[in-house]
């Protein structure tokens, strides 16, 4: 494929240069965080010497570590539940045509579009209406209310990714399995599920990152005693610039980057397999 406009070379270099600047813009904040996380003086823009103190501080900060544990617990439970019911929903929507299917599908994608604040508010009002004790009492319950709220958007993301995969699937494989005497459950588990696994994992990783990042919904649905990582980070940023957050940022960014590449790699591998 030749370049789009062979007659003019100038716009090409202009766009490349501009894009390069934009790449710099995208990575500048991340580089700044990394720079300060190793800088002895986090308040001066100049380099005052290399230190790992901020990392030591981070690993001995029990508040942050317990917030991290709460966030991980919420994300793991929410994503696990969403993976199961989101996948079932995607398969069901692909397979059945029934009155109200359009509405069902529309509602299932709403959490991708509605602002977090609206979801957060409605969940809080709902929890208040059914009188779940948000503060005091059972600490477990506080964690579970966040999980319940997170499942809503996690399940949308899982379903979206799985649906995309379903439309590219060969529907005859499952039919063949049924014809050969498999029960619907066997056909689902042994034929359809392996085909969907890469999409499910990919959707789960996306949902996991979004759950770990959510501040608003968690603040509205957590009671006292539960504190997720974004809630902890938010309160620290609000009370001034805290250098040990730099170390936390770098660790989180590395973890997210790792998850992202895992998701992309799994997706890439499954695409290759499908083409091959």
């Amino acid at each position: 494929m030749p370049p789009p406009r062979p007659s003019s070379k100038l716009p090409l270099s202009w766009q490349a240069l501009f894009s390069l600047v934009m790449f710099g813009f995208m990575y500048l904040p991340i580089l700044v965080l990394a720079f300060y996380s190793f800088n002895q003086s986090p308040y001066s823009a100049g380099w005052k010497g290399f230190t790992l103190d901020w990392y030591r501080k981070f690993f001995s900060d029990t508040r942050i570590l317990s917030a991290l544990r709460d966030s991980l617990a919420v994300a793991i439970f929410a994503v696990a539940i969403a993976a199961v019911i989101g996948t079932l929903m995607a398969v069901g929507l692909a397979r059945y045509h029934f009155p109200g299917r359009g509405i069902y599908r529309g509602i299932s994608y709403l959490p991708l579009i509605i602002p977090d604040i609206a979801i957060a508010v409605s969940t809080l009002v709902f929890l208040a209406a059914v009188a779940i004790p948000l503060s005091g009492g059972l600490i477990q319950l506080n964690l579970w209310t966040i999980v319940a709220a997170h499942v809503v958007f996690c399940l949308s993301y899982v379903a979206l990714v799985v649906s995309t995969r379903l439309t590219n699937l060969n529907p005859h494989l499952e039919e063949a399995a049924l014809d050969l005497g498999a029960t619907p459950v066997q056909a689902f588990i042994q034929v359809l599920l392996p085909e969907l696994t890469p999409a499910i994992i990919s959707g789960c990783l996306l949902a996991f990152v979004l759950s770990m990042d959510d501040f608003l919904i968690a603040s509205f649905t957590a009671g006292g005693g539960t504190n997720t990582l974004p809630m902890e980070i938010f309160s620290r940023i609000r009370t001034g610039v805290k250098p040990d957050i730099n170390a936390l940022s770098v660790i989180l960014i590395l973890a997210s980057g790792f998850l992202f590449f895992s998701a992309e790699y799994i997706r890439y591998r499954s695409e290759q397999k499908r083409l091959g």
Partner: protein
Amino acid sequence: MAQASTTPKSQNPPIELPRWLEPLALLGPAGVWLGLLLVIPTLLIFELSLVPGIRPGEVVNPSSLENYALIFQPIYLQVMIRSLIFAIGTTIICLILGFPVAYWIALIVPKRWRNLVLVGFVLPLWTSSLLRSYAWITILRPTGVLNSLLASFGLPPLDILNRPPAVFIGMSYSLLPYMVLILYASLEKLDQRLLEAAADLGANPQQVFWKVTVPQTLPGIAAGSLLVFITGLGDFVDPELLGGASSMTAARLIYNQFLGATQNWGFGSALSMLMILAVSIAIALLIKYGDRSATGV
């Protein structure tokens, strides 16, 4: 309208399950979950938005539009308009910054590098949004990276943090990857033969761009703009952390009605309903005029 891919049973399965059980098992759990935690709650805040009062239970005068009328008081109207300006401004900035990048990746970068370059561009999206805002604080604060850089060039310092420009920077930064993703999807489908044909027929590059490229990618531009607008309208973190006290937006106002000092759940619900309405209108416009295939990104 019949069941799409279930096949007639050729042999007798060991146990004959009722036909309705399978769709119920597939669609039931998510349906119940969404019903309980999305549909009913939304109906509840709609109901609450009609109740002037403080908290649920403390009903003063059921079913009135008092809460909605409150929004039009100058003090709140100002917040709404500010939110709109932030969202619209961010959309324009993202479009101007994102189009050349998407164009470059979709049409100029060699095909085998395209995915990698695109992934590289959107990768920062996967990091914590709070920490990205925090990084911008570090850059924009009076003694921050930006001002040290300006000082080293002998330029006067900029006092941007806790002012609207910082909000525009933070929001544009957060939403640019979405814009690029959607514009890329749209530009990638562009029929390049049309561009060549236009050039062959004597159009100069600018004419080709405005008369062929832009009209062809208009649905993608609409989809990207609406997505950025919607997300920007509901953004809480960037205005809150970068904009300072004078940059209160709708999301913060809602937050205050529920978790802040000024507790008024009815008013907060009305604001929330207004936001859902604004988003619904935007989505309706998108379905009507936008590129639906590009929104699945």
